[in-house]
């Protein structure tokens, strides 16, 4: 028996990553990003800037009056296919117009949370099917939460939503329209937000730190320290004071550049989302969040059973109340009618009773006369 000869080339296991690379390169990837935040925070612009194409079209202002007072959060799905150096990605962007724009924003997060859960649910059910080659997977890999640059701190609405999102999806908070804050104000604002996130127990996405990769670990540390990322978005090319042409916003007093790290954290966000951590985002969604969901559901449901749907939508409560009010008013009207009817009947009865009384007394009178006559007659006949 010949002993195995350790050749200097090895047996070729080290070639596995290259094989995987080819397979992945051919298959392509699919990536789903959700953007959540009040209107006017630059969500659409940021998406267009991140992926360098006009994925979301600008708002159709001439039709806004139809939906301005709608009081509902909507969920919009935009799909696109991107290609770079022959590698293609099926990108899905989920937008949430209407969130936080109304007087009463209670439960405005319900459509968003339900959407995220539903995607896990749909994937789970597809996995349980006998035929499961063609799965459509819209599970959200990353959720960008846009914080209004007030300069103070997180609002109660922000905290409520972020708490709920953080346990279901990779949550990445960003400070929107960061060119409204001066450098000092921005630093203080970020610090306050980090404090609130820590103290309120909100889970945000943290890029993993690998001990055996010092460069990667350093990069991850820089990214984590910069969260929440301050963002300036723009798809327009403008000329700076020193003649460069960059993507930025041109004010009367200067040009704020998107890709300038002194002006905003856009590059860091792009790196986190696409360049360095896209795969990690996808795998944490599949391995962590999906598994969490699955575990929760399986503990309470049997295999193959459909999900129990909550049927009370809080927005419809108002309509319910209105209907109930109308019903009660109608009931009141009916009662009033009955009461009148009763009165009427009683009056009739009294009248008839009175007639009977008079008839009675007339009869009595006649009877008395009769008796008298009879008595008189009887006497008369008795006399004979």
């Amino acid at each position: 028996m010949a002993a195995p000869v350790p050749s200097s080339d090895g047996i070729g296991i080290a070639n596995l990553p290259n094989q995987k690379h080819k397979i992945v390169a051919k298959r392509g990837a699919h990536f789903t990003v959700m953007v959540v935040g009040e209107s006017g925070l630059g969500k659409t612009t940021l998406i267009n800037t991140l992926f360098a194409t006009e994925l979301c079209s600008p708002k159709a202002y001439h039709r806004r009056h139809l939906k301005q007072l709608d009081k509902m959060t909507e969920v919009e799905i935009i799909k696109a296919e991107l290609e770079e150096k022959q590698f293609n990605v099926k990108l899905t962007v989920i937008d949430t117009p209407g969130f936080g724009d109304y007087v009463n924003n209670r439960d405005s997060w319900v459509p968003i949370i339900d959407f995220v859960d539903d995607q896990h649910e749909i994937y789970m059910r597809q996995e349980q099917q006998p035929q499961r080659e063609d799965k459509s997977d819209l599970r959200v890999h990353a959720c960008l939460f846009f914080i209004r640059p007030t300069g103070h701190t997180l609002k109660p609405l922000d905290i409520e939503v972020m708490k709920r999102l953080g346990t279901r999806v990779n949550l990445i908070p960003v400070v929107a329209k960061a060119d409204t804050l001066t450098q000092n104000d921005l630093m203080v604002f970020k610090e306050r937000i980090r404090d609130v996130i820590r103290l309120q127990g909100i889970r945000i996405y943290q890029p993993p730190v690998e001990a055996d990769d010092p460069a990667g670990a350093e990069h991850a540390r820089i990214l984590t320290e910069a969260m929440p990322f301050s963002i300036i978005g723009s798809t327009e090319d403008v000329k700076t004071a020193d003649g460069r042409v960059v993507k930025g916003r041109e004010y009367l007093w200067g040009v704020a550049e998107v890709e300038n790290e002194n002006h905003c954290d856009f590059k860091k966000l792009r790196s986190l989302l696409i360049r360095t951590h896209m795969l990690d985002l996808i795998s944490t969604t599949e391995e962590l969040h999906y598994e969490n969901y699955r575990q929760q559901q399986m503990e309470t449901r049997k295999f193959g059973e459909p999900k129990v749907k909550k049927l009370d939508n809080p927005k419809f409560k108002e309509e319910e109340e209105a209907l109930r009010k109308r019903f009660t008013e109608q009931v009141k009207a009916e009662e009033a009618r009955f009461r009148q009817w009763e009165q009427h009947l009683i009056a009739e009865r009294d009248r008839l009773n009175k007639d009977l009384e008079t008839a009675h007394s007339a009869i009595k009178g006649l009877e008395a006369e009769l008796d008298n006559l009879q008595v008189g007659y009887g006497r008369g006949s008795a006399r004979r």
Partner: protein
Amino acid sequence: MSYAARRRGNKLKKGVQFTVMVVGASGTGRTTFVNTLCESEVLTHKISDNADTAHVEEGIRIKPVTVELEEDGVRIALTIVDTPGFGDNIDNEFAFQEIVGYLERQYDDILAEESRIKRNRRFRDNRVHALLYFIAPTGHALREMDIELMRRLSPRVNVIPVIGKADSFTPSELKGFKKRVMEDIQHYSIPIYNFPYDIEEDDPDTVEDNSELRALLPFAIIGSEDEVELDGQLVRARIYPWGVVEVDNPKHSDFTKLRSALLNTHLTELKSLTDDVLYETYRTEKLSRNVNADTQDSSILPEELATQSVRLKEEQLRKEEEKLREIELKVQREINEKRQELLAKEESLRNLESRLAAQGSQADF
């Protein structure tokens, strides 16, 4: 001494009283604007140090503060009513009622004072003469919150819409935003104070001034309490890595125009509109409401609409229906019985009569 000088002298002694309310969600630049307007720290900035109570929803508070200013030789006793906490809650319905309640309470005070037999000479008039509403700089159009607020408050106070933190817009974005805001205001027929003028009646200067101010609506405001040295001069400005924004530069912000309109040119008009139109309307409504108040039914509380009571009412209805039907039947029966009795008695009467008649005729024999 000329009449005008005498009048001015009078004002110099007492100072003109003027009350402005500022409303807007936190972070729209309200506090900074007031401090910039009064050139001193009149309002303190929000203290947000407590991170573990950040999720607690505070209600709205209404805080009046008085400052003495001098504008163009005229002393103004300016009262600023701040409304911190507006729009910060998840459900902001209550905040509206608070503000309207405050405005109406001031009117009630004046109404009560007017009706007194002996009026107090030193009575303080706390009516709000102008309300600056800070629209958040979204860049799109008005939100439901903005529309509702302006709609509900316009009948009680002169509402002037203002865009806070306007340095988040490029010039073209600002123009588009202003246009859409005014379009929305027109679409929903919100009666804001829009520097009214009459082309036929007023003199051309007034017409020009007012139409210029109207075209600037909503005013784009940038405020700053920090001073920066620019070209050897100390100016109020905000410093960014890409440039410096000057507060008093009319190309950068409409702050100067708003200040002069509020404290100088249109102060009297705002006051007289409040006194002569808004207060009178409120007075008429309130007094006529008192006359008709007694016959009004109190509205049904939502608690009474619980399913329980609805079902109870249904039961009651059914029982009453049955009762009524029984009563009807009983009455019918009684009527029939009595009729029968009547008929029977009639019969017997007739028999008796006929017998009597027969016997009577017999008796005659």
